[in-house]
């Protein structure tokens, strides 16, 4: 009897011990926030394949190559930290050469099996692939930066950076506050470039409230001599000059102005299209005290950004990174979406998971960026802008402005 009682007692004691251990383990796990993944949430892929369409050859390769670098940098960081949901990321980069037909052909090639696409980098390519995005209901993080451009592929486009046109307006308003003697501004723009055209339209519409008069000055595509348009601008007797041009053209404009007596520097403002390394080489001396509006501050002190800057300078022979570093944020936003939504990559769930990622990123929660927190609102990246000034041939941050 005693043996049976003893056995029963030992059995119940053992059971109680097992139950207690289970109870303690469960509490620990719940307390630590770790949940045991349901089988349905298990990652079904060996690597997350993310295609990227950028311009590696052609007119904007100076932006496309750093964009590729930024995406690869983010992917390397993510993989070094264990990947997304424990699975590494594989970025495959395709060159569209800023050719719309190539962009359409390439995106048709990469869409099958993809959850999301990065790019195209250029605005025209981003517009060209709109129909493919709509037909396949797949999200692209691209250069459609404003409502007009986003409308062509709504809701399957999310801009990878803030709207430069908005930035120009925000930056210009701050510029007018800092230099209150500016009552009229000549704005140089390229009528053949949709983004530049959009810039001038928004600029003219939104700065009139400041009391500053805007005088648009067209510079044709392929213009080599900027003397005539600069003379035309000066003949309008304006106080300031704004250029939304690429860096070589912006530097050329600055030189023409400088050589004609516009030497203070504070009369000139450039946009984020003109933030290339030529500002400090061929433009040295001609741009001192001039202003720039940017969507990433090149002098941001955050350790994470400084680490990126050093890595970039090492790979690009001392050059400073430009606003295509926003592709880092784009890659990380995809990571956040996959982790939050517990995306599996299962081909059977492709349509559902594409939609989930699209819904998540099109109107996103607050996301952590390289330099600031930001949100996507109807596909548009809403984040601060920075007003910079060139002092002693380098950028100095003057203001951070909310849109």
């Amino acid at each position, binding site marked *: 009897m005693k043996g049976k009682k003893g056995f029963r007692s030992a059995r119940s004691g053992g059971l109680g011990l097992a139950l207690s251990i289970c109870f303690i383990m469960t509490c620990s796990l719940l307390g630590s926030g770790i949940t045991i993944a349901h089988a349905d949430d298990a990652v079904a892929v060996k690597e997350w394949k993310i295609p990227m369409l950028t311009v*590696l*050859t052609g007119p904007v390769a100076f932006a496309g190559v750093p964009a590729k670098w930024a995406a690869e940098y983010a992917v390397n960081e993510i993989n070094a930290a264990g990947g997304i949901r424990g699975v590494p990321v594989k970025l*495959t*980069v*395709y*060159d569209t*050469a800023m*050719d*719309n*037909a*190539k962009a*359409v*052909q*390439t995106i*048709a*090639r990469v*869409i*099958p099996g993809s959850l999301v696409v990065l790019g195209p980098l250029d605005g*025209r390519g981003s*517009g*060209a*692939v*709109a*129909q*493919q995005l709509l*037909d*396949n209901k797949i999200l692209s993080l691209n250069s459609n930066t404003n409502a*007009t*451009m986003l409308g*062509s592929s709504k809701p399957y486009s999310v801009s990878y950076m803030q709207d430069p046109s908005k930035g120009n307006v925000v930056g210009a308003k701050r510029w007018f506050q800092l230099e209150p003697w500016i009552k009229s501004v000549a704005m140089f723009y390229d*009528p*053949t*470039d*949709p983004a530049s*055209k*959009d810039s001038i339209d928004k600029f003219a519409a939104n700065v009139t409230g400041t009391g500053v008069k805007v005088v648009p000055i067209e510079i044709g595509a392929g213009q080599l001599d900027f003397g005539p348009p600069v003379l035309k601008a000066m003949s309008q007797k304006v106080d300031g000059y704004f250029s939304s041009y690429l860096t070589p053209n912006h530097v050329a404009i600055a030189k023409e102005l400088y050589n004609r007596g516009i030497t203070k520097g504070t009369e000139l403002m450039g946009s984020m299209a003109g933030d290339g390394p030529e500002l400090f080489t061929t433009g040295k001396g001609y741009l001192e005290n001039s202003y720039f509006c940017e969507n990433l501050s090149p002098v941001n002190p955050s350790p994470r950004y400084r680490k990126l800057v050093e890595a970039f300078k090492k790979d690009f022979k001392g050059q400073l990174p430009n606003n295509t570093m926003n592709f880092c944020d784009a890659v990380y936003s995809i990571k956040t979406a996959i982790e939050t939504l517990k995306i599996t990559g299962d081909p059977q769930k492709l349509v559902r998971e594409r939609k989930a990622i699209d819904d998540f990123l099109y109107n996103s929660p607050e996301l952590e960026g390289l330099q600031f927190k930001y949100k996507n609102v109807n596909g548009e990246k809403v984040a601060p802008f920075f007003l910079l000034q060139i002092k002693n041939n380098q950028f100095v941050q003057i203001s951070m402005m909310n849109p």
Partner: protein
Amino acid sequence: MSPATLVYIEFVGVFILLLWAVYLPFRGGQLYNGPFYCMAIGAYTAAYVTKMLGWPSGIGLLMAMVTGATAGFFPALAFSKTTGIVTATASLALIFIIQAVIRNLDFVGGAQGLWGIPKMAHLPIVVWVFVAITGLFVYRIDKSRVGRALEAMRTDPALASTLGMNLRWLSVFVMTFASLIGAVAGAFYAFTMGTIIAESFGFTLLLSTMTMLFIGGRYTMWGVLISAPILWGIPQWIPPEMASYTNIIYGALLVIVLVVRPEGLVSREMIDRLSVQLKRMHRQDS
């Protein structure tokens, strides 16, 4: 069939049409860039009619043909009086003119372009039916008195003139017909892309097309059937890491072909020999 394959088939069809449009005046010794300018007109006409007016794609295509032929006829009257480098350079100006005009027309989207162009149903099939029909026309022109007159015009315009050929009206006819084909290519391009901007019909397109024409064979209509699929397909088949070298590959192919085989991959002699061979085989069979 995968979306990428369908898009590839559509683009190859568009390029073949455009190449035949460039080939026809070249047959008569004229390097005429009018088809590119009419491609823009055809594309925008088809896009405007289908997207803004909401008319069916078939009507859009028809309107593109009408506007393309009309827009091609008037410059052809002027260019029929010019030859050689003058025709090539002056007709190049048409491309820049039409781009500037389009950018200043707000009702076709201006610099922003036109997007959301409705896709034509069964587009790949329609494109290739038109390729077949156009190919038949081009073949018939090639084999007809017109084709022989073009050959004479290319070889010796002065002699051709003394033989009673009206070179001016021959040029007008060929250039207008080429413009019509260019406009059709433009309409199909618009339906394939879904979005068009003025810059799409510029120098890049001109260079790609000329490369295909010269590599395929500029003295026969058959070469483009080889060069267009190969050259358009290269970026799709090579690994993405090598995609940046596409232009180098094109350039290298062009130089190699021009050095080793200046007449292109498919020459007239090759076609004539093949034709004789086929006739012999047919006679033996019968």
